[in-house]
């Protein structure tokens, strides 16, 4: 027993104070929400050609990037000779509307994630059932880490539960492999209404690197309605947590 107490003293209290305190440090090379400078773009299309998943597109002569499809591999940024497209450190990327995930000159600010239904019903207590439907275990790992003492998801009343029958909604990762379609449908049906669905990661939003494969359905929306989209490959835990907290109105959008 003494050694357990001593170890606890040595390990110290490590729960971060964010969102009430400073943001935890992000890596220097972190790829967050991109920003565009349309004035620099000459529509050469190098970004489109470089993008492995069709996330970067020139629309009406202006650069756009669908962060929902994006793998954050920075191939487009590297390909652009004029610096029209850059990834910033903005970690707030989750959005309630699929369309808000596309960044362009006109839409630079981070998108709205709050959903009134979520705030009203689940603002103080949100129990989620995680379903990995073809996920590679990265989104799963960075979701799991939110339960550890550094992040401590439980202090916000948010928890992952063992059964859809105990849950208020699903958090889906993976492109929804055809082999998981039925299990996902059944799990969704087992959650009582009102319920919400969160698509976490590029695969769950639009299929990720597997978009277009006949072995996958192409994202959670192909099977269930989705209320919140969290981009990334995988999304940084801070992006996931920020998304969840804005979704239930625990922190404001501003």
């Amino acid at each position, binding site marked *: 027993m003494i050694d*357990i107490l001593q*170890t*606890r003293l*040595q*390990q110290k209290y*490590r729960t971060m104070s964010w969102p009430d305190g400073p943001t935890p440090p992000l*890596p*220097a*090379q*972190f*790829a967050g929400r991109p920003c565009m400078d349309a004035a620099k773009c000459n529509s050469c299309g190098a970004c489109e050609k*470089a*993008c*492995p998943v069709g996330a970067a597109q020139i629309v009406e002569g202006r650069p756009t990037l669908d962060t929902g499809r994006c*793998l*954050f*591999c*920075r191939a487009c940024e590297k390909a652009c000779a004029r610096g029209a497209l850059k990834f910033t450190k903005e970690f707030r990327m989750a959005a309630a509307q699929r369309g808000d995930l596309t960044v362009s000159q006109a839409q630079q600010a981070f998108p709205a994630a709050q959903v009134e239904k979520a705030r009203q019903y689940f603002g103080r207590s949100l129990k989620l059932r*995680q*379903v*990995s439907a*073809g*996920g*590679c*275990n*990265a989104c*799963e*790992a*960075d*979701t*799991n*880490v939110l*339960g*550890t*003492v*550094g992040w401590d998801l439980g202090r916000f009343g948010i928890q*992952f539960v*063992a*059964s*859809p029958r105990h849950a208020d909604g699903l958090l889906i990762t*993976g*492109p929804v*492999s*055809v*082999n*998981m379609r*039925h*299990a996902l449908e059944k799990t969704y049906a087992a959650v009582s209404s009102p319920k919400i669905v969160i698509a976490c990661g590029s*695969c769950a939003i639009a299929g*990720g*690197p*597997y978009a277009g*494969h*006949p*072995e*996958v359905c192409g994202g959670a929306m192909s099977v269930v309605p989705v209320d919140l989209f969290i981009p990334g*490959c*995988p999304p*940084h*835990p801070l992006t996931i947590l920020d998304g969840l907290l804005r979704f239930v109105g625990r922190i404001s959008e501003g």
Partner: protein
Amino acid sequence: MSAFASIANGGTLSCAKLPRLEVGAFRAAVLAEIALGSRLSALFACPGKDGGFLLIAVLAQDSRSRLAVTTCAVHDRYPALTPECPQAQGFERELAEQWGIHPEGHPWLKPLRFQPARAGVIQSERPDIGVSPFFSMHGEEIHEVSVGPVHAGIIEPGHFRFQCHGETVYHLEISLGYQHRGVERALIGGPHPRTIHYMETLAGDTTIGHATAYSRVCESLMRARLPARAQGLRGIAQELERLANHIGDLGALAGDVGFLPTMSYCGRIRGDALNMTATLCGNRMGRGFVRPGGCGADIDHAEVEDLLRRLEALRKDVDSAATLLFEAPSARARFDGTGAITADICRDLGLVGVAARACGVARDARSDFPYDIFQFAQIPVCTWTSGDVFGRAFVRGLEISQSIAFVREQLAALPEGDVWRAPTVALLSPDTLAVALVEGWRGEILHAALTGPDGRFACYKVVDPSFHNWQGLAYAMRNQQISDFPVCNKSFNLSYCGHDL
């Protein structure tokens, strides 16, 4: 002519030089070589133009650090290796499912991934996922427990079918395929712009491991040599990946026996290791870091110093958390003797990685088939003897110490210079076989590619260590209490998506 061609780890062989035996001779040669102690690292098929297939076997000769390769032509059937060589069971089920090649006499010819056939099998014959002829027991008080695909925690899906009598598990069958995304099919004709992204996500917690194996295949096929700084950085990234996962596993094992202190500490410390990987390239899983030709990112002197400081803090934290776990009588009571497998079973089933080393079978590609930085800096192989949950946990603890020492040594001695060198050739070598082994954190990863006359992949085989080891978990559960399943499962911690591809 010898039955086998011999290549090194990362070696290439022109297709013209591949031995082509007839089926009987192929079978006899492979079985004889395995009886001498070699391992079946891969057995796969490459479709030919005439509707037939080239069956390729890659055997690992650990004591000689060589890979023995042989092939034979098959059409739609051949006498199975599995009855005499259980290591082949998964590979032969894969041949049947992917290509319609029937391994005659296979005692366990059940679906492997429930995937669409690449060729040969008529779609109407394909069973629904999870509908498998599971072995069953009959009798009074016998009950069958079915778990998954969706599991209680935040974990990938798979199906476990237990045959139980009271608390005792007589037999566990594991049915996977839920994560199948069509990786190997999509690699044909590559490299494409998406290829590296498939490699980084086919087993997303082993991004560095698989990206390294793929990069080495390309580097072999382009006769590329890595800059020295890239060698060091890749080794650091690989060991950081091992650290993060092993630390996480110790925490999860503690959690599964209700030992919350170590569960809490290791859950957090794992994030520290992932953040160190993120310092290298901006991504906690290491996406974007390993690329054919070297590394996709670099760090400066200040970042190296910072990593060294953080590594020392991590070492102290992990040391105290792990010691607490290994010395807690309550945890040891659950770990000791649970899920034990013997070294003989391990060799029969062809287990690799931590699961093998915990039985005393000292298999480690970093030392048996030294590659890249491991040709210059050897990490001692960590083994235990009990082959139980404790053994698999303790080997992780030992490997954590070794990897920390390695990362410290490499950071302090990082050569200056570029981290990436452009290829000197435009195309991969045509009509060539290349094989690369990497010691991923779970165990041996194998990538084998066969290029066509155009220098593009005609065939690409990925063998994740989990492909060998799932059968080990099923075996380890025999005669165990069903309540020990979570801790046994965690002690292996295998990849569902790495198996399903």
